[in-house]
C-alpha cells in the first residue's frame, strides 16, 4: 500500500535507533497513545461543534457560522476563550479537592480509550484480556470526580447535583454491567478485541443476538453520561448548573471535555460489543486478501469511527427531542424496568446458549461450528440465537408488565385516596371541614 508505506519506513528507522523490544513495547505504544489522545481530543472538540450544529438544525437555526467557514473553527475559539477566563475559586471551597476533581473526571474518561479497539492490529493501544471490566471500573471513577466537585464547591446546588449524579450513576451502572453479560456469553471473552474478532469470525453483529442488551446498554450509557433526557445532575431549571456551578474557565472546560469524552467512550464500547466494532462485511475480502494490510486497518478504523459517530448522533438526537425526566421517573426506569430486563436478558440468553448446545449433534444437526473465538455458530445456530434474541423482546415485555402492572399501587396519591375512602361515602371529603359553629 503506497499511502501507508511510510509506516514501515518509520519502523525501520526506529529499529536502527533502538533495540527491537524498545521499539515494539515503548516507542510504538507511545506513538499510539499520542495519536489516540490527539484523535480523541479532536473528536471531543468537534463533538461540541456537531452538538451545537445539530441542535440548531433541529430548531430551524443555523448554529455557529462566524468563526471560519460554516463556523468550523468555533471549538478552537471556545477553547481559547475558556483558557483565558478567570479561574475562580469560591472562598469557602475545599481548595485541594476543588483543584483535583476536574482532573479525575478527565483522566477517568480518557484512560478508557487505552483498551478500545479502534481497528485490528496496530490500531489498538493495548488488548487487556479483561477489557470490559476495565472499562466499567474506570468509567465509574468519573462519579467520584462529580461527587468531589459538588462537595468541595461548598454550594447547595453543586452538592445536590453531585448527590443526584451519584445516585443515578449507581443505579444505572448495575443494569449496564448486567446488560453486557449477554453479549459476553456469545463472545466468551472479556477482551474488547476478542469480542470484535468473535463477531468478525461469525460474520454477525451481536446486536442481532442481543437487541435488548443493546438498548439497555445504550439507555444506561446515556444515563451514565448525565446526558439529556437523564441530565438531572445539571438540570438548569432546578440546579443552576449542577455539580459544576462554581467552576469556571479551564477547570469547567475540563468537566465539559470529560462529559464528551465519556460519551465517546460509551459509544465506542457499544459499537465494539454490539455493532461489530471495526468489523464490516467485505472489507476483509477487498483489502487483506489482496495483501493490503495497512489499508485494511485504516478502513477498519474509519468503519469503527463511522459506527460510533452514528451512535453519537443518536445521543444528540435524543437530547434535542426528549424533555428531562423527573427524578422518580428516572429511578423508576432504572430499577423497575432496566434492571429486571437486564436480568431476564441474561437468563434467556443463557437458556438460548444451552438450547444451542443441546441441539448440537442431535439428529444430524450442527449448531456449533467451533469455540475457537467466541461461540462460533452455524447458520441454524445463528437462527436459533436470533429467534431467542428477538423473542426475548416479547418475553421481557410480558414479564416487565407483570412486574410493573401494580406499580401504581405504590403511588402515594393512590394510597392516600384509599385511606380516605375507608368508611366514607363516595365523593365526600374524609376530614369534615371545620365550619363556623
Amino acid at each position: 500500500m503506497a499511502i501507508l508505506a511510510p509506516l514501515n519506513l518509520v519502523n525501520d528507522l526506529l529499529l536502527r535507533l533502538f533495540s527491537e523490544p524498545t521499539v515494539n513495547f515503548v516507542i510504538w505504544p507511545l506513538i499510539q497513545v499520542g495519536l489516540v489522545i490527539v484523535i480523541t481530543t479532536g473528536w471531543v472538540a468537534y463533538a461540541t461543534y456537531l452538538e451545537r450544529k445539530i441542535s440548531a438544525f433541529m430548531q430551524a437555526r443555523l448554529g455557529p457560522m462566524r468563526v471560519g467557514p460554516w463556523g468550523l473553527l468555533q471549538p478552537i475559539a471556545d477553547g481559547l476563550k475558556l483558557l483565558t477566563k478567570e479561574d475562580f475559586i469560591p472562598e469557602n471551597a475545599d481548595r485541594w479537592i476543588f483543584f483535583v476533581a476536574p482532573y479525575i473526571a478527565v483522566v477517568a474518561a480518557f484512560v478508557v480509550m487505552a483498551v478500545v479497539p479502534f481497528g485490528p492490529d496496530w490500531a489498538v493501544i493495548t488488548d487487556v484480556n479483561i477489557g470490559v471490566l476495565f472499562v466499567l471500573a474506570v468509567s465509574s471513577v468519573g462519579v467520584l470526580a462529580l461527587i468531589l466537585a459538588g462537595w468541595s464547591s461548598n454550594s447547595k446546588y453543586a452538592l445536590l447535583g453531585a448527590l443526584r449524579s451519584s445516585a443515578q450513576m449507581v443505579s444505572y451502572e448495575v443494569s449496564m454491567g448486567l446488560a453486557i453479560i449477554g453479549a459476553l456469553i456469545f463472545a466468551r471473552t472479556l477482551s474488547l478485541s476478542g469480542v470484535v474478532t468473535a463477531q468478525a469470525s461469525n460474520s454477525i453483529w451481536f446486536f442481532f443476538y442481543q437487541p435488548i442488551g443493546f438498548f439497555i446498554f445504550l439507555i444506561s450509557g446515556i444515563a451514565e453520561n448525565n446526558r439529556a433526557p437523564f441530565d438531572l445532575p445539571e438540570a438548569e431549571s432546578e440546579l443552576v448548573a449542577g455539580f459544576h456551578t462554581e467552576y469556571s474557565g479551564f477547570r469547567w472546560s475540563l468537566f465539559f471535555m470529560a462529559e464528551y469524552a465519556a460519551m465517546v467512550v460509551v459509544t465506542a464500547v457499544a459499537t465494539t460489543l454490539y455493532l461489530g466494532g471495526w468489523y464490516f462485511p467485505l472489507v476483509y475480502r477487498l483489502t487483506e486478501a489482496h495483501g493490503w494490510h495497512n489499508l485494511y486497518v485504516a478502513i477498519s478504523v474509519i468503519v469503527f469511527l463511522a459506527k460510533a459517530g452514528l451512535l453519537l448522533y443518536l445521543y444528540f438526537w435524543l437530547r434535542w427531542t426528549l424533555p428531562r425526566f423527573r427524578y422518580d421517573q428516572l429511578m423508576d426506569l432504572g430499577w423497575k424496568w432496566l434492571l429486571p430486563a437486564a436480568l431476564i436478558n441474561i437468563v434467556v440468553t443463557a437458556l438460548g446458549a444451552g438450547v444451542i448446545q443441546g441441539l448440537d449433534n442431535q439428529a444430524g444437526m450442527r449448531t456449533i461450528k467451533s469455540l475457537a473465538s467466541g461461540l462460533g455458530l452455524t447458520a441454524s445456530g445463528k437462527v436459533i440465537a436470533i429467534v431467542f434474541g428477538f423473542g426475548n423482546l416479547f418475553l421481557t415485555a410480558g414479564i416487565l408488565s407483570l412486574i410493573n402492572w401494580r406499580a401504581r399501587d405504590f403511588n402515594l396519591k393512590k394510597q392516600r385516596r384509599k385511606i380516605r375512602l375507608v368508611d366514607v361515602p363516595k365523593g365526600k371529603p374524609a376530614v369534615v371541614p371545620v365550619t363556623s359553629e
Partner: protein
Amino acid sequence: MPLVPVPKSTFAQKLKRFFMVDLLQGMAVTLGFNIGALTDKDAVAGKGIYTEQYPKVRPDVAPRFHGAPRLNMDPETHETLCIACNLCALACPEDCIDVIPMDVEVVVAGKPRRKKVLDEFIFDTSRCMFCALCQEACPTYCLELTQDFELATYSRAGFVWNREMLEQGRETVKYES
C-alpha cells in the same frame, strides 16, 4: 380534593405506549427538521432554516415597512425637492418635524420677489411613530420613510436628524459577507 375518574387505557393505547410510538414520532419530527435544514437552506415553508445572518445578510423587511426618514433630491440638479410648505409638520401627530424656511430674493418675470426655500429640516426620530402621515402629506414626494431600520444611536441627541442626515442618510457599519 375531588375525585377525578381516570379512564382506563384501551389495548391499542397500551400497545402504542409499549412500542413507544409517541417517542418515535417525536424523534421523527426532529430528524425531519435536521434533514430539512441540511437540504433546503432557505426554505420558508415547513422545515428549513428560519434565522438570518443579520449583519452579513440584510433581512427582507415587509413591503409596507416604514423606517428611517429621507429627504429626496432632484436626481438631475441635486437640489432638494422640498418647497418648505410645512404640510408634513402639520400632518405629524407627534409634532416631531420642524421645517425651518428662509427667504431668498429671486427675480420672477423681471420683478424682484421673495421666495420661501428650505433652510433646515429637523426630524426627531425618537418621537416618531413611523405612521408615514408626513409622507402622505408631502406634495412633492420629497419626504419619504425608507425601509432602513438601523436607527440606534449612543445618545438621545443622535435621534434628532438634521437636513444633512436626512438627505445623505446616516453612516452605518457595513459588514462584508
